[in-house]
Each structure stands twice: as structure tokens, then as C-alpha cells.
């Protein structure tokens, strides 16, 4: 295993983290869109907002991380993808801008109609962004990105069977993960009605995504033969099995309302699909002849990236775990209950003193 392989594994960890944590945030937008009118959807939207509010910005870092590591470790393949995929990447970029800003603005909107407009922008772009990113993945996976400055077809590189499969799978997976996560969080918060609401949706989307994924293998056989060969190789098969096992057990566990292990199984199923793609394509970054070692940066650069990764592990990961644990325990979630030693109660005491 070369240093370039190590960096590639790190990049794939980033892809996985973005798929799962970023995916859960995107999926929250999916369910926001289908939550119904303002009266009926109000509690659902409020709950979703509460679950992703503290974490959604931090979850952009996975994407930034993947892009930066790709361009640093594999510069020429990176710019080949970025320039050929100019259209879907631009559309995804717009999705990211509109989604994040409308989400941040929505809670301060003055009227219900403005909230509706911002909410719809947030929700629609939450679906379009993973779709377009999925089409990029599909184009890369089906060898449609040649090496060079915008060398591939600007349209068919991302409008093709594998890309459509990638886009649909991406949207479906985000919806599935988000519903699974939300059902667990609702159950923990004692919101049994919401837990049921998300549970039925998790089961339904999980089933649909599973069917699409199985059908997708046929699409790959016809449209992306090299990836297909990789998938049915000794490297790919275990991951396919893991994904199927994860998906089936997630559905089974959801069905029996075992939310915590269901969440784990859903994560496993999604991660296995992403690693299956990686394993199926390895050792080629793009196009069958653009190999990992041939187009990697030199070792000092890769070593520096490894160092930055370790630094991130040392600083950011404990911080993130702390944030997740605070949101998980509901510590950051509920604004109404007050903690005695908090700054807020300190402020209240000061204001009391002043008024006396």
C-alpha cells in the first residue's frame, strides 16, 4: 500500500462522512419538503430544524475536505473531473448556497409566506444538490471523464444511465438516513408520534432505495462494465454483501422499533455502497488508465496531507464528538429548559438585581 493509497483511503473516509452526516442533513430537507402544509408540517419541520441546526454547517467540512484532498493529492484527475463536470457541479454549488442560506434565514422571516418561500428553497435544494453530486459520481464511475481541461462531454458525462442511478440513489439514501436518524432522535426525545412518522417513512424509503440499488447492478453491468467487473471481484463482493445485510437489517430493526441499532445498520448499508464504488473502481481514479500512483502528488505533499489529517483528528474530531454528544443528549436542543449554572441564568440574575 503506497502513501497515495493511504490518502485515497482518507479521502474515501471523507466521502463516507459526507454521505452519512451531510446526507442526514440533506435528507432532513427532503422530509421538510414533504411534511405537508404549514399546520400539519409545523411540528415535523420544527423537529428537523432542531436536529440539524447545530451540526449542518460543520458537515460542510467533509465536502471541502474531499475537494481539497483530491486536488492536492491528485491534481490533474481532480481538474479533469471539475472541468468536465462543470454543469452538474455548478448546479450542486447553487444548491449548497441556496440551501444553507435559506435555512439560516428561515427562522427570522417576518411572515409565514416568506417562511414558506425560504423553506421551499431549502427543501428543494436539499434534494437537487445530492442528485447532481450523484450524477457526478455516476459519470466518474462509468469512465466518462477523460484526463484534461474540460476534455469530456459536457452533457452526456453526467446525463447517462449510471449518473441517473447515482443521482437517484444519492437522494434516496439521504432520505433514508435522515428518516432513520430522525426516528431514533424522536424516540429518545419521547416524541413517539414523530418517531412513528419517521419510522414508516424510513421503512418505505429504505425499501425503495434497496430495490433501486438491486436494479442498479443491472444498469452498471450494461453502462459501466469496468465498475461492474470490479464490484463482482473478490474486493467488491464482501461490500455488496455488507450493504445488502445492512439494508435488510435496518429495515427489520426499524420494523421492530429498535431505533438505535437500526441507525447503525443504515450507516453500514450506506457506507458499504460508497466503499463498494471505491473498491470497484480501484486502482483507477478516472478512466481505466489513470491510476492512483501515476497521478499522485509527490511523497512530501502526501505526507503533509497525512499530517493535516492527524491534526484534524487531534483537534476537530474530539470537538465534533463533543458537539454530537451535546445534541444527542438534547443538551443543545431544547431552548426552554434552563440550566442553573448557565450564562442565561446568570444574565437573568443580573437583570433581576438591576430591577430591584
Amino acid at each position, binding site marked *: 500500500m503506497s502513501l497515495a493509497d493511504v490518502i485515497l483511503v482518507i479521502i474515501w473516509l471523507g466521502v463516507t462522512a459526507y454521505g452519512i452526516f451531510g446526507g442526514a442533513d440533506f435528507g432532513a430537507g427532503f422530509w421538510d419538503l414533504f411534511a405537508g402544509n404549514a399546520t400539519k408540517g409545523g411540528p415535523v419541520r420544527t423537529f428537523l430544524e432542531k436536529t440539524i441546526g447545530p451540526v449542518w454547517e460543520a458537515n460542510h467540512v467533509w465536502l471541502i475536505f474531499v475537494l*481539497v484532498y483530491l486536488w492536492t493529492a491528485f491534481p490533474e484527475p481532480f481538474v479533469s473531473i471539475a472541468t468536465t463536470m462543470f454543469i452538474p457541479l455548478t448546479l450542486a454549488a447553487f444548491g449548497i448556497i441556496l440551501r444553507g*442560506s435559506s435555512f439560516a434565514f428561515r427562522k*427570522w422571516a417576518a411572515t409565514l409566506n416568506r417562511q414558506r418561500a425560504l423553506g421551499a428553497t431549502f427543501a428543494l435544494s436539499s434534494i437537487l444538490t445530492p442528485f447532481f453530486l450523484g450524477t457526478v459520481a455516476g459519470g466518474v464511475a462509468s469512465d466518462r471523464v477523460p484526463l484534461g481541461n474540460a476534455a469530456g462531454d459536457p452533457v452526456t458525462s453526467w446525463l447517462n444511465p449510471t449518473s441517473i442511478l447515482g443521482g437517484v440513489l444519492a437522494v434516496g439514501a439521504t432520505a433514508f438516513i435522515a428518516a432513520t436518524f430522525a426516528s431514533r432522535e424522536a424516540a429518545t426525545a419521547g416524541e413517539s408520534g414523530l418517531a412513528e412518522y419517521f419510522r414508516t417513512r424510513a421503512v418505505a424509503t429504505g425499501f425503495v432505495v434497496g430495490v433501486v440499488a438491486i436494479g442498479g447492478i443491472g444498469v452498471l453491468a450494461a453502462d459501466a462494465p469496468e465498475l461492474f467487473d470490479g464490484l463482482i471481484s473478490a474486493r467488491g463482493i464482501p461490500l455488496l454483501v455488507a450493504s445488502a445485510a445492512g439494508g435488510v437489517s435496518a429495515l427489520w430493526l426499524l420494523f421492530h422499533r429498535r431505533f438505535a441499532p437500526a441507525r447503525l445498520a443504515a450507516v453500514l448499508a450506506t457506507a458499504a455502497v460508497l466503499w463498494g464504488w471505491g473498491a470497484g473502481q480501484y486502482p483507477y481514479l478516472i478512466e481505466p488508465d489513470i491510476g492512483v500512483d501515476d497521478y499522485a502528488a*509527490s511523497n512530501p505533499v502526501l505526507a503533509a496531507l497525512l499530517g493535516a489529517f492527524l491534526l484534524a483528528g487531534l483537534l476537530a474530531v474530539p470537538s465534533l464528538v463533543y458537539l454530537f454528544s451535546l445534541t444527542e443528549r438534547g443538551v443543545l436542543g431544547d431552548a426552554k429548559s434552563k440550566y442553573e449554572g*448557565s450564562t442565561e441564568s446568570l*444574565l437573568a440574575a*443580573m437583570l433581576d438585581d438591576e430591577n430591584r
Partner: protein
Amino acid sequence: MFEWVGVIADANLTAARYQMAISLGFHIIFAAMGIGFPVITLIAHRRGIRHRDPAALQLAKRWAKAMAVLFAVGAVSGTILSFEMGMLWPGLMGPYGDVIGLPFALEGVSFFMEAIFIAIYLYGWNRLPARLHFLTLLPIVGAGIAGSFFILSANAWMNSPAGFSIAPDGSITDVNPLAAMFNPAVGVQYVHMLLAAYMVAGFTVAGVYAVGWLRGRRDRIHRLGFLIPFTLAGIAAPVQILVGDVATRRLIDAQPAKFAAMELLPETRTRAPLTLGGVITDDGDVVGAIEIPGVASWLGTRDINGEVPGLDSVVPENRPPANVVHMSFQLMVAIGTALLALALWFAVVWWRRRDLPLSTWFWRFAAVAGIAAIVAMESGWVTTEVGRQPWIVYGLVRTSDAVTRADGIVVSATAISLTYLALSIITVAVLRRMAKRFAAGDDTPAPYGPDPAVSR
């Protein structure tokens, strides 16, 4: 037919440059707020708990909410930039992506820390122990200081490429990421931008309370809300001018054509004049300017008879568009000087009376100081970026050789301009809405769904 190919390629280059300029120019405002606002909030929060000052603590709480909205827009507009680096500039990121990758990776770590701790601080008001809650501000401030270094390092590298060799066949070898990161231009550029961020955040936040002051709101919240950010910006202002002077003098050897464009000097000469206003014609004549003899030489060399470079120090095809650079540079310097004057005005009044100025004109100037600081920062970026042209990597890669060959950049550039225009308007509207709610004593956002408070 080949002429047409040339025209299309030109249109693509212009559109790509324009898109990059809009994307960076938009993001930098939010980035500056992300660097400076936490410092202001930290000072207020510290004052609140140290001196049991509820007004200061209330300010910190409100500022955290405004900071969160600004940070969100900054986060998404910053994410887009990493797309655009590859989509628009393959000729930069392909050959040199590995050379300048490290600072971007480290910036990612800083951004991560900032995002995590902003969330903890914002949501921790009534849930974390007070001491711990205050401490969560420190990593936010630290991430701003570190993150701006990394980004400025990458930009400084484009001005002063270092940390690699070029083999006879043109390929890049011996890449040393640390040498690239600590390139010769980074120090002064970094300090200049960090101070700019503190000035932009300080004058902008103070400006909000100056407007309130003009409208007769003179309670303790408005007093402190003005004092804290204005003091920070006012301290940064004089230092900024000294740093700017160092940055300019550095250019004489490092980027002579940029210096010549900033000072609008056609020829390398001694006793070069400071050229106020004016434009340079295609024939190389400066018209419509007020010239003060010897001052440009003095600024560049500390000797009124010193020799400073003119545009003729490089061949014509390597010269930047001097008029844009000159105008933006002078605008930045003029605003910077005016802001320094405003800070001095305040300092003199405070020193004599230990109180805020009474003059309405002071408050009028203070009200627009934030916008002025933003204009100055943008002008500074135009100066350094346009002044580097025609190079994307100074002396090595031309911008025209680095641009993407994909079609449709005109469309995406137009779309992003409209989107950012709309976002700017909504951001201002949301912040005003927030201020109104605060003024009405309501510190919480609206709930979802129909609610008497929101469905009016």
C-alpha cells in the same frame, strides 16, 4: 473562424475572472465578519461576566445570533469557492494544486473548529456551565486567526510562488509544501487582511449602533454596542496603515509592475510623484492627475530622490490594467485614512471628556464607517488581484492559460451574480428584522407554522 475561437475563449476568460471576483468579493465580507465578530462578542461576553454587566452580556447573546446567520452564509459561499478553484482554473490547480494544497487542508481544520464551536456557543447559552460556555468562544477566535493565515498563504503564494522547482521538461518537482505555505509574501499580506477583518467587523457592528444613536436610542446597550466594536476597529486602523506601507514597499522588488500600476507610474524614475486621481492613456500618458513631486519615491524608498519602478519595467504584455489598479488602490488608501481620522476624533474626545462624542457629524460618519471599511477591503483585493495580472501564478502561469475550456461560464457567472445580489438583500433584511425583534425585547426566532406573531 479561428478569430471566433479567440473571441469565445476571451469571453470565457472574462466571465471566469468575473465569476471568481464576485464569488470571492461576496465571501470575503462574511469571512471578515467571521474573523472579527467573535472577537467583539468575546470582549462583550467577558465584560458581562467579569463586571456583572447585563447589557454587555445581552449584547453578546444578540451578537451570537447575528454571527450565526453571517457564518452560515460565509460557510456556504466558502464551500463554493473550493468548487470554483477546480472548475474555473484547471491550469492553476492541475500543475500546482499539490503545491498549495496544504494551507487549504489546514484551513479546512480551522473552519471545522469554528463551525463546531459557533454551534456550541450559540446553542449553549442556557445549557452549559457559564465558565465553560465563555471558553467556547476562544476556539472560534483562534480559528479565525489561523484560518485567515492559511487562506492568505495560498493567495500570497500566487504573488510569490515558492516551494518547488521546475524541471527542464516543464514539470513541477521538489515540492515542499511548508516552503510554499511560508512563502515570502505571506507575512505582511496576512497581517494586512487580519486587521482588515477586525476593521470591517468593528466598524460595521459599531455602525449599527451609531444609526440607533442618531435615532435617539442612547441606552447602555447602544453605548456599549458602539464602544466595544469601535474601539477594536479604531485600534486596528493606525496599525493597518503602517502594515499597508510595508506591503507596498515590498512590491518594488517583488512585483514592480503592480507597484507601478498602483502609483500610476509609466516610467521607472527617480523623484517619482504621488499621482492623485488621473488615468493613463493607451499611449502611456497620465492625464487628469494631481502630481506631488517625489512622494511616490519617498513612499517606496524613504528618499524623495529614490528610484522606483514604472510600468516600463516589464514588457507590455506583462503589464496589469493600470487604471483599475490605481483607482482601487487610491480608494482603499483614502478610506483607510478617513477611518483613521474618525478613530482619532473619537480618541481625542474620549481622552478629554471620557465620554462619547456629541457631534452629530461624528455619528453620521460612524454610521457609514462599516460600509466604507467593506469598500476599502474590496478595493484592496482588487488592487492585489488585478495588479497581479496577467499572471495567475506570478511570472509562471498566465490567467488566460489557466482558465477552463468548458462552455457556459457566462451563464454561471450571471447566475451567481444574481444569486449573490439576492442573498445580500435578504441577509440585510434578516439582520434588520433581527434588530427589530431585539429592539422590541423579543430575542427568539419565530416558530414554524402559523403563529400569531408571524402570520400577520
